[in-house]
Structure formats: C-alpha cells, structure tokens
C-alpha cells in the first residue's frame, strides 16, 4: 500500500529552496562523497549546493580522497510525466532499476510512478550518473516534478 | 504427459460410489459438481444420467456437462453464490430424471483383429480360458452402446462387452500404443484415439478416424450411439 504522506509538487526552484530539501540533498551529496553540486533550474538559474567541510565527510566515514571529483557543471532532473505515487523499485523486483551513483543511459528507466493499477516509468533524459532522488517512496508526485537528479556525462 | 494418464482407464474393481438409492453429489473445487448415480453400471442408469445431462445443460449457470460412467460432471460458469441451493436443485433434478434413450446412430467400425497390434490377445486368452478365435468372435459379435466420451478427444467408452472377455487393465501400460488400437479395459471396450501410453489390452486395429478437430461435431461417436465392429481381417 502507498504511504499517505502529504507531498506538494512544485517547481524545481521551489523544491531546491525548501530548507528540508536542501538538507536532504546535502546529505545525499555527503553520502555520495560529493562536495558540491550545481543544479540548473527550469528558468535557467544555477543553484549551487555545497556540503560541509572535509571534516564532515570524515565524520560521516567517507574518505575525502575517494570522493568523486565533481566539476561545476549542471545537474539535470529526471521528471515524472504524470501525477501519481513514486515507486523507487518496481513492485515485482527486489532492486531499483538504477542505484544512486550508477551510470544511466538516455531513456533508461530510473524509477516509477504508480497511478492506481498502472505504472509509468521515470526516465533519464541523457547519459550521466544518478546523483540523488528528491522524493520519498510513496510520495505524491505531479506532472513535470523532479524525482531524480542526474549529473550528465562529459 | 504420460504420467497423468493411467488413472482414467478405470476398471471398477472396488467401486466407492453412492449408497443404494441416493446419488452422491459432491463439488470439485469451486466450479463443478459431480453427481454419481447409485447402483450398478447398467444402461438404464446411464440413460437416467443422460436425461439429467439433458435437463441441466441449459441452466443459465452451467457452462458444460460431461457425462461419465453412471455419473455426470456439471461445470459452472462461475463459483456459485449459494452452493447448497445448487446442490439441492441437482438432487431434485436427479429425482425427476427419467430414462431417456438417446436415438443414436449406428457406427460400424472395420477392424483388423490380431496381427502386430494385438499384443495383449494372448493374455486375454490366458485370463479367459478362451481361444483367440473365440475372443475375437465374442468381441465382434457384441452390440455396443457409447456410454460416454472422455479421457482423450473422441474416445468412446463402449458398454456391451461379453462378460467372458472382461479383462482388467494392465499394471504396466504399453508405452506407445498406436492410435486406432482396439482395446478391452475391464468391462469396457474402445478404440484408442491417441498414440501413446495405454493401460488397456489390445486385440486389433481400426483405421477409422474417431476425431477430427475441424469437423462439426469433431467426435465421430456420441453417447447413445450404437457401435458394431466388423472383422475386416483376422490375423491369428
């Protein structure tokens, strides 16, 4: 069953500037060993999110030397094409189609949206690395809502 | 598929069936009732089963009926809402069922008795104490009635076998009995319709097509039909 968590869909900018989301993204970045990330919003603005110092990474058990170097380039969203509830993993499978940190190719399915008895895919628009998921399992997402952040391949 | 086939060719050695005068009505799963007539396997009982089949097949909840040997399987379109009610109605219908004599056609089947396909003839002779000629004669002189079709497409269970040539089915079935083999199983006889494992005893061979899927009806025989075997050749 879907979790009935209240979730508002909104623009990427609005989502980015939400303190809770910022904090969450920072956590993911830390988890991925990434120091900062720049996100291009739909109105062309660049939002840079910088995580704590190296010390914070060490505290989190992440070796800063091993942290992937992140060039200051933009991150692309993978969006839902329809309103429904986010399914990170296909209900008949044990694992996600693509894990955070994995490379994805254009059109690859990275997650799902459940609409009653049906399921719609969320796809990567271009090749890159799946960096973060911006919504929780079972959350209500809308048309055009960003669900994943993908760092494009060079 | 072979493993599941042996059981269908039954000889009523020990028969667990209904009590003296009440039919036994039971469900198989959620969508079928089996009505088993009381008493012996005889034509009057079988005719009453046919009458029951005839009465029930047009009930709106019934998808198909399958007459067996003194029994009737009633397959429903869906799981009944009130299974007890349906049980009672079937019982009542049996009470009302009177013998009907299906005005069947007469089918004459040319048979080559003996020969390569009559691998069990010797065993029947041993069991009955009759000569092979006697066995063959008693078989083709018989006047048979199709009791039911089943076990394989178009296979008819024939009633009317001379008790002198009753022969229990084999404990070890033949692995590849040819389609068209004329066989005896217990108190019944028939012509096999598929090539494959078979526990009945072979005494001859018939060329006649018993089943053609594209024909209407696809099966040559129907319950109530009369069957005569005509000895075309006897190779002993």
């Amino acid at each position, binding site marked *: 069953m879907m979790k009935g968590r209240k979730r508002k869909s909104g623009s990427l900018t609005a989502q980015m500037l939400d303190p809770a989301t910022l904090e969450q993204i920072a956590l993911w970045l830390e988890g991925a060993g990434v120091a900062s990330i720049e996100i291009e919003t739909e109105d062309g603005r660049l939002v840079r999110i910088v995580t704590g110092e190296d010390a914070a990474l060490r505290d989190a058990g992440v070796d800063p030397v091993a942290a992937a170097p992140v060039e200051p380039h933009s991150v692309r969203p993978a969006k839902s094409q329809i309103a429904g509830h986010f399914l990170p993993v296909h209900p008949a499978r044990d694992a996600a189609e693509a894990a955070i940190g994995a490379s994805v190719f254009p059109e690859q399915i990275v997650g799902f949206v459940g609409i009653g008895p*049906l*399921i*719609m895919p969320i796809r990567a628009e271009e090749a890159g690395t799946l960096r973060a998921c911006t919504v929780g399992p079972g959350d209500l997402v809308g048309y055009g809502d960003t669900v994943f952040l993908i760092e494009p391949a060079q | 598929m072979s*493993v*599941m086939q042996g059981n269908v060719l039954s000889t009523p050695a020990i028969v667990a069936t209904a009590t003296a005068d009440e039919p036994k009505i039971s469900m198989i*799963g959620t969508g079928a009732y089996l009505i088993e007539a009381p008493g012996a396997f005889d034509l009057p009982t079988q005719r009453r089963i046919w009458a029951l089949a005839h009465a029930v097949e047009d009930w709106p909840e019934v998808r198909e009926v399958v007459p067996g040997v003194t*029994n009737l399987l009633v397959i429903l379109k869906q799981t009944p809402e009130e299974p007890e009610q349906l049980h009672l109605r079937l019982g009542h219908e049996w009470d009302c069922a009177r013998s009907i004599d299906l005005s069947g056609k007469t089918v004459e089947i040319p048979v080559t008795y003996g020969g390569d396909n009559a691998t069990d003839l010797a065993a029947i002779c041993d069991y009955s104490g009759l000569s092979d000629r006697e066995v063959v004669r008693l078989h083709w002189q018989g006047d048979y009635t199709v009791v039911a079709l089943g076990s394989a*497409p178009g296979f008819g269970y024939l009633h009317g076998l001379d008790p002198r040539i009753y022969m229990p089915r084999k404990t070890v079935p033949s692995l590849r009995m040819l389609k068209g083999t004329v066989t005896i199983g217990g108190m019944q006889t028939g012509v096999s319709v598929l090539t494959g494992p078979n526990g009945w005893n072979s005494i001859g061979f018939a060329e006649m097509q018993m089943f053609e899927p594209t024909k209407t009806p696809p099966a040559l025989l129907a319950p109530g039909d009369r069957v005569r075997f005509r000895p075309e050749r006897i190779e002993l």
Partner: protein
Amino acid sequence: MIEVLQTGPLNTVQDLGRFGFRNAGVTSSGAMDRLALMVGNLLVGNAEGEAALEIQTFPFRLRFERDMAVAVTGADCEARLDGRRLPPWWAMPVLSGQVLELDTPRRAARAYLCLAGGIEVEPVMGSRSTSLRGGFGGLEGRFLAANDRLPVAGAAGPAVPQGGFGVMPPETALAAHFPAPEDGTLLVRAVPAGEYALFGAEAERFWTQTWKISSHSDRTGYRLSGEPIRLASPVELRSHGVVPGVVQMPPSGEPIIQMSDANTAGGYPKMAGVIDVDLWRLGQARIGSRIRFVRSSIAEAREAERAVRAYLDDVRCTVPMLAQALAAMSRR
C-alpha cells in the same frame, strides 16, 4: 507477423481455453496463469481472452515483423527489447525488426507475450489454445520452434503510450486477497472433494504437510511428492469427468493436481479441489518448489474472485485513460 528466433520446447499459443468439448474428451487447455494472460491483453487494448504466447522454457527470442504494441506479463524474465532491459508486467510499442528476448525467470514459471490484436491462428472448436495432446489448436497443434512465424491481427484498442507503461502485478495489487507464502512455501487454497472422507484422520496430513512439486509435472498436472497418504485398500471410481484444480490421490499416495491440460476423465479418489481463483498462482509455481494446501470455502473463494474481477475492471478502465491523458498532453 512475428518470427520465433529461439525457443525451448513446450512454448505454445494459448488463450483462456476451449470450452464445451470436455464431453468429447477434449481438454480445455488455455493459459496456466490466466490472470497474467488477461492483464497482458488488457494492457495492449485487447479483449482479455485473446491468444498470446505462453513461454515456459527459455531462452526465448522473437522478432517483430511490423510495428505493434506488445505486453509481457507473468514471470519476470528480464525481458530485453533490442538489448534494453524492460520492467516486468510491461507494455510498449515495438518497431518492425526489433528483437525481444526472455531469459529464465528467477521466480515464477511462465511469461505471457500478448500482442495488440492477438495472435491470429485459426480457432479450433472456438479456441486458439494449443492442445498438445490432441495435436490441434494454436500453431498446428504443436509447440513453437525456431523460424516459426505467427500472424498477429490488427489492433483494435487505443495506442499504447510511446514510452511504455506497466501494471501493478496481481501479487502486489491483490496481496490482501491471497495468502502470503510462508518460508517460500506457496499456500494454495482448496476445498475438500468427493472422497475426502475416505481418508479419515489421514486427511489432516494433506493440509499440514508441505508438498514438493515433482519433476513429473507439466501443463497437464502437477505430481506432488511428500509423505504418502494412502487408503487401507485402493479405491477406483467409475470413470467421471474432472476439471483443472482437482487433487487426486493415486494408489502411490502422492497427490496429483490436474492443471490446464487436465484429463477430461479420471477415476482416482478426489481429496480436494483447488479454488479456481488460486489456479493462476499454482500455474506460476515451479518444479521443485513447495506448496501447502489451505482449507478454504466457497465463500472465501467468491470474495477473492470479486477482488480479482475488480482489479481487472480497474485495469481495463484505467489503461485507456492513461493513453488518452498522455495523448492529450503531447498534443499542442
């Protein structure tokens, strides 16, 4: 047309089965997992009973010879379209020349490939199901072989959305209406049948023990292995009609469950009948896997049937909605 490039044995064309000829000894045949077939058909806009391919031996590869919409349901075979991995229970448009590959599933036994319009082999006695035993129906009454080409009818329903879409698998969507497996043992609901009482106290073991599906199992029936349950003296019945789901007890004492290609007649004592609505789950049980019978009732069966019906209706109603919504969104 579709062309089979690679296949194992025993993969056949199946629909919901052939009815009305059991009294002539003709088995009903039809998909082992009828629910997967129905859902697959609904996804591509077909009536729920159109003919599809039942794939139970792998690997299986096939090429589409024209653009069409297809759905793969049932067991998760890690399907790949031109090498690109597809989620299970998935429908999508395919292009002429594209190749679909299905690999041995890790769970479940059978996958269904439904095509918009349905496989257009000639119906025999009202059905396109293959009767392997009878040698008719489906593709010349036989199982598929490499280089076979099968005709596909024109699609009648709305177009399947470009990017593909899926359906909540019945196991998830209907979880509340089916008993969950216990330690990997499939729980199959059944009601006692005609000769149940003959087994007396022994019958209890039928429910309590775990049975293994033996390797002598196929579309005709599943032979189960376990601690035998025998009668004091063997009983044979007069030959009578049987249906899929009947659990027979041969003298060996190990049950046989008749499946889609069930014999039309039998004479072994009948211990129980699997409720119809649980047969699709049994159809996905693999050889070597374990099952346990759970005593059920007609009322419980009806309840589950209602839930399945509601699920199918929901899918039928929502699929065109999704297609229309996406079509309206892509029109400028």
